[in-house]
């Protein structure tokens, strides 16, 4: 698969121009994550004072919110960069240019890496300074944690934009609730064992579940199973491949049915 760096650079440059031209776009990267850290930091601190179990709520809850927000940023990083083309009705100009689907997706993913890492950095700094939370307390496990969440975020981001491409600009409203719908199943703040059996089955096919279970094991001082993280990585990779295949399939479908030109004239309603 041939990748022309200038095509990918065009997508990155466009996102840079948009942020430079409208600094308010930086707010979601910085402000919402800061609010989450402050809110969950105080909740964790309060729980630590009233609970006598000795369990570190700060490490568990702040860790959960940092990693969950990172996953959210990755997913929204991909979908927001795509939605810029929906909002500016740029489908026709873009897809009539020589950029390939793979180059376009690669550009979106790199945009997402940059914005999600910026958000992660803000969260780590704030959680460390304000609440004494340490990112390094999880040891080397943070690397597979981030990788799994990154891959799953990318796959959901691509799935979300495929839906918008398939059903048109109004389908944008299906994108935003996706993380909220998944969070009860992904066992972000509680162990999978508290879920009803049917929810546990669903939880087991979601890669983030393994990340949050492992994180809680580390916090509580019990040993986490590295095979769980390996399984999560393999699952996440399968989801990325399926999402890319699905996007390619949807792209061919909209080209066959002529939706690109139609969406260009449509706006979100």
């Amino acid at each position, binding site marked *: 698969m041939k990748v*022309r760096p*200038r*095509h990918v*650079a*065009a997508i990155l*440059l*466009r996102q840079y*121009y*948009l942020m430079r*031209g*409208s600094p308010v776009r930086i707010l979601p990267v910085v402000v919402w994550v800061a609010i989450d850290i402050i809110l969950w930091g105080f909740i964790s601190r309060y729980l630590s004072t009233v609970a006598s179990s000795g369990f570190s709520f700060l490490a568990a809850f702040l860790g959960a919110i940092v990693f969950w927000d990172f996953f959210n940023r990755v997913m929204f990083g991909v979908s927001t960069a795509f939605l*810029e*083309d929906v*909002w*500016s*009705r*740029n*489908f*026709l*100009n*873009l*897809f*009539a*240019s*020589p*950029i*390939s689907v793979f180059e376009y997706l690669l550009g979106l993913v790199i945009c997402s890496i940059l914005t999600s890492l910026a958000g992660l950095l803000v969260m780590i700094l704030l959680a460390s300074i304000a609440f004494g939370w340490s990112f390094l307390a999880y040891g080397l496990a943070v690397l597979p944690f981030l990788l799994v969440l990154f891959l799953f975020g990318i796959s959901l981001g691509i799935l979300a934009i495929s839906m918008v491409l398939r059903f048109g600009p109004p389908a944008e409203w299906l994108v935003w609730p996706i993380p909220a719908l998944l969070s009860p199943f992904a066992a972000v703040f509680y162990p999978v064992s508290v879920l009803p059996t049917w929810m546990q089955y669903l939880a087991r096919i979601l890669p983030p579940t393994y990340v949050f279970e492992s994180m809680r094991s580390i916090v509580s001082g019990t040993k986490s199973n590295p095979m769980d993280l390996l399984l999560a990585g393999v699952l996440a990779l399968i989801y990325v491949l399926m999402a890319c295949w699905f996007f390619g399939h949807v792209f*061919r479908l909209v*080209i*066959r049915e*002529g939706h*690109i*030109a139609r969406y*260009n*004239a449509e706006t979100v309603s």
Partner: protein
Amino acid sequence: MKADMADRNVLAVVDLCKYYGSILAVDHVSFDVNLNEIVGLLGPNGAGKTTIINMILGVLQPTEGKIYIEGIDISTDRCKALERTNFAAVYAPLPGNLTVYENLMFFGLLYNVKDLKDKIEQAISLFELGRFRNTKCGVLSSGEQTRVGLAKALLSGPRLLLLDEPTASLDPANAREVRDRIRSFAKKEAVGLLWTSHNMVEVESVCDRVLFLSHGKILLEGNPRTLPQEYGMRNLEELFIAVAKEPLTIEDGS
């Protein structure tokens, strides 16, 4: 001679068909565009002009038929074919949240334009966009946005240029200037143009050859300056109206 013609051919549309469900929008259309030639694609609303342009741009898949851009089959080598093509259309303005310069940078990279900064300066100068360089396209008038769209279309030095009603939103003075610039570009550069318009005076002055489309079929083809007389009409506008009113009964008047 044949080899020479093949070298000059920038667009070959062969037996193109498009069905939307059971509706036939384009019905076995074939035509060529050669280098330094401006071909007008004419027809009433709904005749299939934009459908054909969308298929040439690779954003709509034909049901049958082939499209070759400089001999490259767009169905098998889409990106390579589109590198040689560019377009401007009133219904596809450039993103309004980027400035004129930013849009030209963005699309210049997408079209892999060499010496991009110099080419942008030339395009800005050609379409007198200097004072709008740092203005967001969304706040420009429709005429100014059209000029930015044309600057983007010419920026990549395309071999095939598709212009869908390029002067529709321009005042007569601006429209004349834009026509002159595009005509001069078409004669000087190695480019072939496909031009759609409902302004028959414009078509007569700009196009070397016209194709009249009706109900998705090419009904007439020829020189816009002699075609009306061949069909017993006084001018192109009369011929257009006749085609639009009774598209399937018009007969050769000669």
